[in-house]
């Protein structure tokens, strides 16, 4: 029977659900001109308080609630803190963009909060049902957010593609789960781990594992299940793209960890090679196709695919070292991609998306600070030392080597060098190309946006030099 203690463990989630419902009602009853600003600041306040609730009263070790449905441990804590942080940044970056396009509406904030609740439930899931439901909450909100700009054909097309492929992926995941349930007779992840060695149907288990990995790969956006990523990144309003590229990636890592490490940990020898293949394909597809892109949002989409390949390199290790390096990578990617899309948002204005690489020509002459921030993002994404992204890459490559997969680490390193080309191309365009005549770069005048963006990009440099504490925090989460 659920007790009051169960609710205490889940305070951050319950609080966010209540806050989202209050904001939803506030949106309905506030006068029209107050809705946007009120919801904006209220949501940011809600998220800041959410971070406090997650960090405060964090129990030592793992505790479960509602019959093991919900796990609150170090992994969940770190992922939740960064998911909340990224969402705060998204709200700040998105505000001017939304106001310029008549999208500054309450639904953006409430749907975002519900998606975030999905992320938090997903990374804390202790049961196959909770994984599925958390994922559905996250993706259903994301589909609607992508389609939020109803007058844009590109957005609608992206939303439909996202919806159909997402539904297919959820179906695959469910199919896999049902097979695993059939073979082990349990849905609880911890019981599942204990039941796997005694299962009388190992073949059925492997089939279930394959289908579940397909579902995870879809959500991560790893090749060959990456088809939705470029279209969704390009078609969605940039304010939504920046979200899709941040918190949900943390959630996808959390889901992969819960499913594969907690649930199917005993079958690691089976899924290690599958993940290795996915990683190589993602690295190849992401880095090679990104070279020919002319649209920056699309380029960043292909770069996501390659980054998911690196994240998988960490997971392939299948030990605490691998998991902590993969989580470190997921966090670094979420912060880098938030900053990179933040620059696009800061430079766009009504009627001008600033999403083509050409739009960045000669940015240095017009706005040196923005060009510098973009330079930091690109260097970090490329993995140039001493940026954050460099150490993240180093750690996952190290994890792959320690797993005895030297070839995989070599492939990763080679593709990192290939990837350098298109990141540096953006930098070259900003610093050495002449600006196109007749275009004006006008920065968004929003002060909080500039401040948050500067801090976000500079953190990439600071964490690149001073990465010890964060890594220590990640490692501690996987001890014991």
């Amino acid at each position, binding site marked *: 029977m659920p007790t009051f203690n169960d609710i205490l463990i889940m305070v951050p989630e319950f609080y966010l659900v209540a806050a989202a419902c209050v904001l939803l009602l506030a949106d309905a009853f506030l006068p029209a001109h107050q809705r946007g600003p009120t919801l904006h600041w209220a949501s940011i306040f809600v998220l800041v308080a959410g971070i406090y609730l997650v960090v405060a009263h964090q129990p030592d070790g793992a505790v479960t609630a509602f019959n093991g449905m919900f796990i609150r441990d170090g992994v969940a804590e770190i992922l939740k803190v960064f998911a909340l942080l990224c969402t705060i940044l998204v709200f700040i970056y998105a505000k001017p963009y939304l106001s310029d396009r008549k999208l500054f509406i309450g639904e953006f904030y409430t749907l975002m909060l*519900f998606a975030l609740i999905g992320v938090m439930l997903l990374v804390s899931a202790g049961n196959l049902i909770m994984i599925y439901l958390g994922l559905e909450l996250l993706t259903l909100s994301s589909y609607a957010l992508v389609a*939020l700009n109803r007058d844009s054909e590109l957005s609608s097309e992206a939303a439909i593609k996202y919806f159909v492929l997402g539904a297919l992926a959820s179906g695959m995941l469910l199919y896999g789960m049902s097979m695993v349930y059939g073979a082990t*007779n349990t849905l609880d992840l911890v019981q599942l781990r204990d039941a796997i060695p005694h299962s009388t149907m190992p073949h059925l288990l492997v089939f279930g594992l394959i289908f579940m990995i397909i579902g995870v790969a879809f959500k991560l956006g790893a090749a060959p299940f990456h088809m939705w990523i470029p279209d969704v990144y390009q078609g969605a309003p940039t304010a939504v793209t920046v979200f899709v590229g941040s918190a949900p990636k943390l959630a996808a890592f959390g889901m992969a960890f819960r499913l594969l490490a907690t649930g199917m940990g005993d079958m690691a020898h089976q899924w290690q090679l599958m993940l290795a293949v996915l990683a190589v394909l993602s690295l190849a597809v992401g880095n090679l196709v990104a070279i020919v892109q002319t649209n920056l949002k699309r380029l960043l989409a292909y770069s996501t695919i390659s980054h998911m390949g690196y994240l998988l390199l960490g997971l392939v290790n299948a030990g605490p070292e691998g998991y902590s390096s993969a989580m470190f990578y997921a966090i670094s990617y979420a912060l880098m991609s938030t900053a990179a899309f933040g620059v696009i948002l800061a430079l766009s204005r009504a009627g001008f998306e600033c999403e083509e690489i050409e739009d960045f020509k000669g940015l240095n002459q017009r706005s040196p600070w923005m060009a510098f921030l973009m330079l930091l993002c690109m260097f970090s994404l490329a993995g140039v030392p001493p940026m954050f992204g460099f150490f993240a890459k180093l750690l996952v490559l190290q994890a792959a080597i320690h797993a005895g997969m030297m070839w995989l680490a070599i492939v990763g390193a080679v593709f990192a060098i290939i990837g350098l080309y298109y990141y540096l191309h953006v930098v070259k365009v900003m610093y050495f190309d002449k600006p196109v005549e007749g275009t004006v770069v006008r920065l968004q005048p929003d002060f909080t946006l500039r401040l948050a963006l500067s801090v976000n990009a500079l953190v990439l440099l600071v964490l690149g030099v001073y990465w010890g504490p964060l890594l220590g925090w990640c490692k501690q989460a996987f001890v014991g």
Partner: protein
Amino acid sequence: MIDPSVFQLVCFYAFAAITVIAALSVVTLRNSVQAVLALVLTFFSTACIWMLAEAEFLAIALIVVYVGAVMVLFLFVVMMLDIDQEKLREGFMKYLPVGLFVAIAMLVEMLGLIGVRAMHAQTMGENPATAAGMSNTAWLGQALYTQYLLPFEVAALILTVGVIAAVALTLRHRAGTRKQQASEQVSVRASDRVRVIKMAAERPVESQPAPVQESKP
């Protein structure tokens, strides 16, 4: 006499076959109304399979909710749409052989590996409802509100998001549309709508010359 378990097995395969055929027809039929009807059949035979698994409540809920309400609504929508049937199916025949080959190959592989025999093994354990000495519905209700309370609530959240998304994506305030204003209608008074003009019941005939009548030719 037929062994009851054998009979159950035969029933299962029959229902399962019908489900698969109906599901295939949902996506292959040219006429969308027929496709919806095939979907009804799919749901129905799925309900039959659940009935075999002694999940009576779920089976009835599936029929009442989906077949009874959702599918009828669906049918209304489909009948109101004006869809060009031929254009939708372009390229279908081209991809059919490849798709069929992949599907059949996968099916054969999976059946071969798992082994039909393994599927017959008793793996699902005892029915928890029978073990607890309760009816299926009572057990389901109890499990839903105790052991599975959290997923149940999260499912409610998902439905909320569905409503928000549907409203956010479809509600449009067009300028110039005439909408019903219930509050104004209720608070309206007779004096706002009807103007009573006082006038004499009979107007005195003024002495004026009678209109000149046109003389008929």
